[in-house]
């Protein structure tokens, strides 16, 4: 993907011009001040080629590395397009803040800064809060959950006797985590709101304190100044703690402001305890408990009404839900359900089906694709998904490729239906995968585990089969993007045609392309495409009399072995605009650079990254190895000729160390252009793989009258 295309993708995924109130940049990042932060699709931004990372915060920052200036120019163009020529250049930058490294375009769209109230914004603030509170406790919950499930397994297999002290003591370990769940969320809530942590923990700790629980649970209950304290079991409840800490936050802020400084240290917490604790035991606690029951009830109700259909449907839409980050909304109710009833039969079960389907689909893609990079990605993504982490598979393989996505949905829904019908339940809150599979062990029902396993196999089998049948490299967004952006590694994996179609290869009778594209039709090559791999492509170029009658035609040979790429796809503003002439580019697999024609060496930079040759017939050709490689100051290049030397077509000019160039972070793609193309008609004859020495481009002198025709 070129810079321009990436810029377009970034622009779209931050919400377009209407959503950008300010655009600035620093040395590696684009900095967007957005009207609505939630409209920025973080996942999609990360998936854009060229984007190294995304950081959300007061500004949405997109890390693009050294191309930031070009990206900024391109995005700025998109923002201000609608045509005034002033666009990127001129006055817009004058408004940048003095001295700041981030000078920016003028603010557009919406009043600077103040964000309008909207349900969407409230919703996203809420979601953000929920995620910040629950996500950090997951490792503890997951670890304890698996521990517990292993104990259940041990007991089911007869290794441990549940009545022994051994078992009871060991069980106490994970049980402690669940028992003290209110404290865990009290901590994370306090951290999120920046409330004093120990005070928050101390406050919520009341709910679990033996002296308190004993009083409340005693015969006849207990009353505080005449009011009976509700007898609620707060063990493993999350919402009472969260609500209480939120109220504590309000109390803390108020009193910190109004309290005389010298006594603040003890007075603020004192007020916190005095005010919030009674509120908590009378109102907030029962309220939270009720909320938890409601949520759990809703989840169960959904499950009970729709039954297995619910599981199947959820499994089917999970890829979509995860891609927008909304799957995190399922964590609190799932957590509450498992804490309250010990198991979940909905979200975690659907996840099992989904995770395994991602794995199956990815493995099938790895098997069927010919693109080496994608294959490597798919294999590692498949393994990750197998162990419960689906992001690599989702973002690296399935979301970008329709056919893979279809197979995932198919596998998920089939397995989801089976798991729903057999009423499989999960007993630990952890992402289902091969290592965590013990989460489905039910001490009371061995079939639960077996059905889970069967569901797993179904998911993998269905998704693998569907993916293997449907997959086409030619219909793959990833393959296309890789072949445009990636290095020569992929060039060997050809047979699949890229988007590279020769620009106006109108001249009939020129050498047939070496490979006829297998799937996609390559339009515009009227000559008989001989698929014979050994066809000596030196062929009839010189005889091309179909060319303008009687004028000389020069064939420029490819200086490198590799893959032909159209010049306008080269990710360099100067070359792709044809400023240095018409021609083509080669993505090399080998570093030997040979003369495209016979003539004199007229230019050889000190940095040896570019060679200019004037042919005997006046055609001036420039071969520029890699983009921006002048920066390397000659290190990876060895010159074999000097300025003024006479060279023959095919003679070795320079040797380039492609690995070193790539390792330094530069693109090896090599434009080959006719610098004086105003005087010639230049046509590109080759697509796909090319060997050094094969005809690449035909150059025909124009009639004198046409010397100023557009090149």
């Amino acid at each position: 993907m070129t810079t321009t295309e990436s810029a377009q993708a970034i622009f779209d995924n931050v919400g377009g011009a209407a959503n950008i109130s300010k655009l600035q940049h620093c040395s590696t990042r684009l900095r967007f001040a957005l009207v609505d932060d939630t409209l920025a699709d973080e996942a999609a931004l990360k998936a854009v080629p060229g984007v190294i990372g995304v950081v959300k915060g007061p500004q949405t920052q997109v890390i693009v590395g050294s191309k930031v200036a070009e990206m900024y120019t391109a995005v700025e163009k998109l923002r201000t397009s609608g045509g005034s020529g002033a666009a990127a250049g001129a006055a817009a930058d004058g408004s940048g803040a003095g001295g700041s490294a981030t000078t920016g375009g003028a603010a557009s769209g919406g009043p600077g800064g103040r964000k309008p109230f909207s349900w969407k914004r409230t919703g996203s603030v809420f979601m953000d809060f929920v995620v910040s509170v629950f996500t950090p406790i997951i490792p503890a919950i997951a670890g304890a959950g698996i521990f517990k499930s292993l104990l259940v397994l041990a007991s089911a297999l007869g290794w441990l006797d549940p009545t022994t002290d051994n078992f009871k003591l060991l069980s106490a370990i994970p049980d402690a985590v669940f028992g003290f769940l209110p404290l865990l969320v009290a901590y994370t809530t306090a951290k999120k709101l920046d409330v004093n942590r120990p005070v928050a923990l101390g406050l919520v700790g009341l709910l679990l304190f033996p002296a308190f629980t004993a009083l409340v649970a005693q015969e006849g209950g207990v009353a505080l100044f005449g009011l009976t304290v509700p007898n609620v079991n707060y063990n493993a409840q999350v919402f009472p703690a969260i609500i209480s800490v939120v109220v504590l936050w309000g109390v803390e802020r108020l009193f910190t402001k109004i309290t005389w400084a010298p006594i603040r240290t003890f007075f603020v917490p004192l007020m916190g305890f005095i005010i919030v604790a009674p509120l908590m035991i009378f109102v907030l606690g029962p309220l939270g408990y009720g909320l938890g029951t409601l949520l759990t009830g809703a989840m169960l109700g959904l499950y009970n009404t729709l039954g297995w259909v619910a599981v199947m449907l959820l499994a089917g839409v999970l890829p979509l839900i995860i891609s927008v980050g909304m799957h995190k909304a399922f964590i609190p109710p799932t957590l509450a359900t498992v804490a309250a009833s010990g198991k979940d039969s909905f979200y975690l079960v659907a996840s099992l089906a989904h995770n395994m389907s991602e794995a199956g689909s990815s493995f099938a893609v790895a098997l069927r694709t010919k693109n080496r990079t994608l294959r490597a990605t798919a294999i590692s993504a498949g393994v990750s998904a197998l162990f419960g982490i689906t992001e690599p598979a989702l973002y690296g393989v399935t979301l970008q490729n329709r056919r893979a996505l279809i197979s995932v949905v198919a596998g998920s829904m089939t397995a989801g239906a089976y798991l729903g019908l057999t009423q499989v339940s999960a007993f630990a809150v952890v992402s289902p995968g091969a290592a965590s599979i013990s989460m489905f062990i039910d001490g009371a029902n061995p079939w639960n585990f077996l059905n889970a396993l069967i569901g797993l196999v179904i998911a993998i089998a269905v998704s693998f089969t569907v993916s293997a049948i449907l997959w086409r490299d030619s219909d793959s967004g990833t393959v296309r993007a890789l072949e445009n952006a990636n290095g020569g590694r992929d060039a060997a994996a050809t047979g699949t045609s890229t988007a590279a179609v020769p620009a106006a290869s109108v001249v009939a009778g020129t050498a047939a392309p070496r490979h006829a594209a297998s799937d996609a039709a390559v339009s515009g090559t009227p000559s008989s495409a001989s698929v014979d791999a050994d066809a000596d492509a030196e062929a009839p170029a010189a005889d091309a009399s179909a060319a303008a009658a009687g004028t000389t035609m020069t064939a420029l040979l490819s200086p490198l072995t590799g893959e032909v790429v159209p010049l306008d796809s080269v990710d360099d503003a100067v070359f792709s605009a044809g400023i240095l002439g018409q021609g083509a580019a080669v993505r090399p697999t080998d570093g030997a650079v040979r003369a495209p024609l016979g003539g004199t060496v007229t230019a050889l930079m000190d940095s040896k990254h570019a060679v200019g040759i004037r042919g005997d017939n006046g055609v001036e050709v420039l071969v520029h190895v890699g983009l921006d490689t002048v920066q390397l100051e000659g290190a990876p290049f060895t010159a074999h000729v000097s300025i003024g030397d006479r060279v023959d077509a095919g003679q070795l000019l320079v040797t380039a160390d492609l690995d070193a160039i790539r390792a330094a972070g530069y693109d090896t793609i090599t434009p080959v252009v006719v610098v004086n193309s105003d005087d010639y008609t230049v046509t590109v004859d080759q697509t796909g793989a090319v060997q050094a020495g094969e005809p690449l481009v035909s150059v025909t002198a124009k009639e004198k009258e046409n010397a100023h025709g557009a090149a």
Partner: protein
Amino acid sequence: MQIIKKVLNSSVVLVEDERGVERVLLGKGIGFGQKAGTALPSTAADQVFVALDDSDHRNLVELLAQIPAEYVELTRAIVADAEGSGLELDPHIYLTLTDHLHFAVDRQRRGLFVANRLAWEMRTVYPTEHAIGVRAVDRLRERLEVELPAEEAANVAFHLVNAEVGKVGIDSQRVVQLIAQVTQIVSHTSGVRVNRDDLHSSRFVAHLQYFAERFFAGKLLTSEDDFLFRSLSERYPAAVASAERVRTFVRHEYDADLPNEEVAFLALHIARASSE
């Protein structure tokens, strides 16, 4: 009298004066042991005030709260070095450079390598700033024991150039990017060879620098008649052809038109540099 509104870290506090104007104050240890709401103890000589005049700076202040104090100290040392070299910098550099350095180290730790493709141009066009950048990278290595790649010097230089009083409003990165692009076009279509240490080419690069700065400031040169342009077209057609390519490029990439006067000057410098 300044009241501390928020202590960001031990070297940075947010203060408010009696008129309610908020500013950021930097000083070694200034935030240590201080609490929001107290009055600021006496103002020491080495403290710096940075005004907060728009929302972007407020955002940077928020970011600053999350950055360890040692980065602020490092920035102060770098700025002192720069001022010693004769540069006059806008105080906002304390915010932006600190944020940049912190982020650079973070990137390094995460293995996010970013090649700086304008490093050569930075060195050539802004050598003073680049030298300060090199020393900054050394300092960072000494103080924080993190080895940043040499190209980071160019990034630091970018920030310094942007902060220079007198260059306010200049986006040095785009300036250098344009210089790099024009150099590329010119070096391949004329005999101009741009070498770093060559006196002749340094005059050429200087012209490009001023041209680029004029371009982004919207202050391109024009003239009543095209005398210069027409004369050069006759005398130095090759140089003018090369300059015309630059015109085409600027039209294509930046959607802007170069006046004939600018094309003429460019051609003039090309002609001079290629005959030497």
